[in-house]
Structures are given as structure tokens and as C-alpha cells.
């Protein structure tokens, strides 16, 4: 009886994930077929998917390796610009770069979207590897400040006149080919998320977690601290870069202002809200935050009861409501909605059992 059947458990979960994927695809196909009717819903779903990719990639470094990095926006910018530059149709290029012209090398450099996305990720990863060497020797808040600074530098460089012929400076890039359907967005995001989940649950992921738990103990069991941190940072940045590329495709036009610090905070919010160190938390958090912000638009409209306008209902009020909701979540679910746990069937069952036990305990 000592033997536990890992395989069976994994298979049950796998089946459920497959079911979720199939059902989601079916819903998306349905939405795609009625594109005009569900335009708004589709855009919310696409944005949530992109944010889920970036939030999970941030979680790798923050939640699973315990490195508090705030460079998300910078790495997203690198990925987004790379993808955009490599995918804008040649015919539209003269139109996009009408002010300063384009670097001759880039004039005809067009790649298929998946390859452009991967290159975007690689560019972000290379930058991460380079800045990781000095920066990852810092701890907690110092690391956060250093990465934040880096992210701003990237943004400033992108907007600078010297980069005009590549990034189109402060004019930004437009005519970026978008997703043909929400299913396409779903597939790209899904591939990224699945690979990240595989990494987190692999032996490499276990090394990350060991570092998060105790750096000195991790070194004492033979984990090369610097190499492993660097690996985590690079992998995370790769997927952040790909996420940035997806965001460029979603928005179809980007400029350096898209990648301000507020973008990093949005992602951080998702990670914290979903639960630091929880995969399902990041994904659910992405939908929760993105959809929440949109659904609360109701509060921005004038609202009248019996012909009297309620004074608070005006543009901007939804952010007040949203912030209050956030505070409630943070106060009552201090570790985020899932708090480092995963939403799996086993946990749901455990949760139910615990609840029953609580009830039984109360009766005694």
C-alpha cells in the first residue's frame, strides 16, 4: 500500500486540462464566427490571454525563484518592438516610417509571425542575460529598483531620436498584423503557458523553488546560485518578450508610452492578486483583473435614480471601485486568491473535505 499512484493522478488532471482547453477553443470558435456581435468580449479575452502569459512569466522569477524583479515592461517593449518590426507588411512600411525613413536592412525583413515572436523573446532574453550578470547579485528591493531602472532605460532608448530608423522614435509603430481570430491568440498563449508550466514542474523548476525557500541551503545542496538565478531570469524574460510581441499584435499599434511602469504594475497586480507562486492564480488573476476593469465601466457612466443623477458616477469612478475591490482582496486573501496553491481537482476535493470537517467541528 506504500506505493502511491502518481500516474493516475497526473492523468486525471491532464484530462481535465484537455477538457478545459477543448471547451475554451469551442467557445472561442463560436465567438469568432459571430465576430461582430462579440467584438468586445473577444478583445477582453485576447488581452487577458496576453496578460496571463506575461503574469506567469513574472511569476517564474518572482513567485518561484523569489527574485523581486520589476523589469517586465522593459522586456515586453523589447519583444513587442522586435515582433512589430519583423511583421509589419513591407507595403505599409513607408507609411509607418513616413517621418524618418527605415533602416535599409529592415526594409524587407519580414518573418512569419511565430518566428518573429520567438525572436522577440530571444532579444528580451539576451538583454536579460546581460543585465542579469550585475543585477542578480542584488537582493530583494535593490533588485526591484535596478530592474525598474533598466525598464525605463529601454523605454527611453526606444523613444530616442537615435533609434528613429528602427523604432520610429516617439511616433511608435502601427499597422502591426493582429490576430486573425481569438483562437490564434489562444494557441500562442497556450503554447507559452504550457511550456512555462512544464518548466516550473521540472527539476529545473524545483531548483528555482529551492532558491526561493533558502538561498544558503540551496547552495549547500549543490545548486549554483548565480547560474540558476540567471537561468530563471532569462527564461522569464524570454516569455515576457513573447508576451510583449503578443501585446503588440493585440494592440496593432505601439509606442514607447505603452510600456511605462504602469504596465509592470498591472502585471504585478495580477501576480499578487492571483497568488505569488501559483500558476493557476496568475491565469485566473489575468482574467479577473482585465475583465474586472472592463466590466466596471458601468460606474463611469452617468447613473440616475428617479431622475436624480448620482454624483459619484462619472469617468474615473470605476478605478475607485476597482481599487476598493483590490484592497478587500488583499486584506482578506493576504496571499492572493490562491495563495501559492494550484487549482486542481485534488485541491478542490480537499477544500470541500476541510469545509465539511469545519462544519462537523462546529456541531460538536
Amino acid at each position, binding site marked *: 500500500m506504500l506505493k502511491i499512484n502518481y500516474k493516475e493522478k497526473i492523468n486525471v488532471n491532464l484530462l481535465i486540462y484537455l477538457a478545459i482547453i477543448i471547451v475554451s477553443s469551442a467557445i472561442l470558435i463560436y465567438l469568432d464566427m459571430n465576430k461582430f456581435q462579440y467584438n468586445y468580449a473577444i478583445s477582453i479575452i485576447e488581452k487577458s490571454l496576453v496578460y496571463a502569459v506575461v503574469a506567469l512569466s513574472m511569476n517564474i522569477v518572482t513567485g518561484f525563484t523569489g527574485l523581486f524583479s520589476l523589469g517586465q515592461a522593459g522586456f515586453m517593449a523589447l519583444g513587442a518592438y522586435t515582433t512589430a518590426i519583423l511583421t509589419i507588411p513591407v507595403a505599409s512600411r513607408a507609411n509607418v516610417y513616413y517621418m524618418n525613413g527605415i533602416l535599409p536592412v529592415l526594409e524587407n525583413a519580414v518573418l512569419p509571425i511565430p518566428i518573429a515572436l520567438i525572436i522577440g523573446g530571444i532579444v528580451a532574453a539576451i538583454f536579460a542575460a546581460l543585465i542579469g550578470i550585475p543585477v542578480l547579485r542584488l537582493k530583494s528591493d535593490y533588485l526591484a529598483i535596478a530592474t525598474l531602472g533598466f525598464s525605463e532605460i529601454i523605454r527611453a532608448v526606444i523613444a530616442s531620436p537615435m533609434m528613429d530608423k528602427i523604432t520610429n522614435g516617439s511616433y511608435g509603430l502601427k499597422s502591426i498584423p493582429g490576430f486573425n481570430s481569438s483562437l490564434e491568440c489562444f494557441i500562442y498563449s497556450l503554447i507559452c503557458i504550457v*511550456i512555462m508550466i512544464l518548466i516550473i514542474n*521540472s*527539476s*529545473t523548476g524545483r531548483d528555482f523553488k529551492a532558491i526561493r525557500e533558502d538561498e544558503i541551503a540551496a*547552495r*549547500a*545542496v549543490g545548486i549554483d546560485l548565480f547560474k540558476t538565478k540567471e537561468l530563471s531570469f532569462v*527564461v522569464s524574460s524570454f516569455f515576457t518578450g513573447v508576451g510583449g510581441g503578443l501585446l503588440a499584435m493585440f494592440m496593432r499599434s505601439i509606442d514607447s508610452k505603452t510600456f511605462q511602469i504602469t504596465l509592470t504594475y498591472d502585471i504585478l497586480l495580477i501576480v499578487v492578486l492571483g497568488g505569488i507562486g501559483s500558476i493557476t492564480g496568475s491565469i485566473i488573476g489575468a482574467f479577473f483583473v482585465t475583465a474586472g476593469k472592463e466590466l466596471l465601466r458601468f460606474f463611469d457612466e452617468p447613473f440616475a435614480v428617479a431622475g436624480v443623477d448620482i454624483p459619484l458616477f462619472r469617468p474615473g469612478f470605476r478605478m475607485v471601485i476597482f481599487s476598493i475591490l483590490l484592497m478587500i482582496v488583499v486584506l482578506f486573501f493576504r496571499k492572493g486568491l490562491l495563495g*501559492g496553491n494550484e487549482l486542481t481537482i485534488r485541491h478542490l476535493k480537499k477544500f470541500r473535505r476541510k469545509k465539511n470537517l469545519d462544519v462537523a467541528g462546529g456541531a460538536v
Partner: protein
Amino acid sequence: MTENVLKLVDMGIRFGGLNALDGLNLSVNKGEIVAIIGPNGAGKTTAFNCITGIYTPTSGMIEYLGKSIVGEEPSQITKKGIARTFQNIRLFKELSVFENVLIAMHLRYNDNIFTSTFRLNINKEKEMREETKRLLDSQDLYKYRNDIAGSLPYGIQRRLEIARALATRPTLLLLDEPAAGMNPQETMDLTSYIKEIRDKFGLTILLIEHHMDLVMDISERIYVIDFGKLIAEGSAKEVQNNPRVIEAYLGVDGDA
């Protein structure tokens, strides 16, 4: 001829103006159990930190199996076969008991991110899990395998930390106050346990301990450190009767 495992020659370390350790000479032979004792703040743990590479000594030599290991990364030193436990238990607290030991197995199964991500290492992984299971079983910890390490009782956490150190398959095991916080019965159990793992895994053990019963019972040789300097060495009996040791522990006559 006994083989020398660890040798410190005139090792010293300074932190600013403070000589935390000064001219420490120490040697440990294969299969021995050697203890370092001394009052609080004498530099015992600092010596451990130097041996395992957390600190780099500012002077002197550390030889492991005849080769210098000064300046190497802690992870490299662990790979060479020196494992340790910590005075204030350092487990991966939020991970399960099984994972704690499994992570320590990694270093014997070199993997890279691609093989591990795409599960090309499935056989290695299986082997690692089997071995973890065997080790936990042999240490009587298997029943706790799914428990979160930080939630275990203190004594079990101590044993888990030793099990995790054993998972790296060390030649030399450094135990930093393994009996801290244990009652006399637990200390006695630990004494026989340490001897048992020494014989079973063919270990050489260097330990720091304050429980004199344990130290006197199992150590073949004892080193006494005070204020960063070696003040005595020898068998339990020799050390017990050494006036300098008595002075360090009890103070000089007339102080009281």
C-alpha cells in the same frame, strides 16, 4: 595508514578588525567522528562556513582529499562531497519532505533546462524519485513524504536536514549542533543515529555540539576553540582535564 579527508592549515578569517578565526589547524581522517567545541561566539560555525565556501578564509589553507578548496563556490564544494546541516535548521520550508530530498539529488543527475522541461530526462527523474524514496524509507521519514517541511516537529526537521545532506552522497558530513534543542532521550537517540549513518554511508563526520554527553560519547577526537583560536585538542578525556578548556568554559578561579 589512515587517509586524510579534511585538513585546515593555519586557516584564519578577518571581518574588518575582528579576527574571527586565527591560525586554525585541524585534520579529520577517513571514518572518524571529530567534534569542535567551544563557548558561544568562539568561531565554530565560522569554521564550517569557511570549509563549505560560504566565507573565503583570508589566510591559510583548506585541503579536502589532498586538494585545496579555498575560494570555490559552495555548490562546487558540495559536489566534491562535503555536505552540511545548519545550526538553525535551513530546510526548504514550504516544500514537501519528498521535494526537499529530491532537490538534493539533482546534483548527481546533471540536467539542463531543455531535457528537464520537455521531460527527456524521464528515466533520470524516475531513478531520482526511487532513490529519494529509498533514502526516506531508510531514515524512517517516508511517512512524512507529503508533509510540508516547515510544519514538521523540530526533531523530524533535524532528521530531514540530515537526510537531505545524505542525498548529496557526501564523503564528509558537517553537522552544526545537531542536538540543539533536544531533550536527553532524543540526544541519546541522535548519538546512536550518527554512528549508524557513519557506518552505513561510509561517512567521515565533523560536528559542532554543546551537549557534552553526546560529544564525549561519540567523538574520537575533540578540538576546542575559544576566541577564534584553537586552545586544545585530543581525546575526550584529555580535553576534559585540560586546564585551558576548564578555564574557557568555567572561567578562572576567583572569578566566581
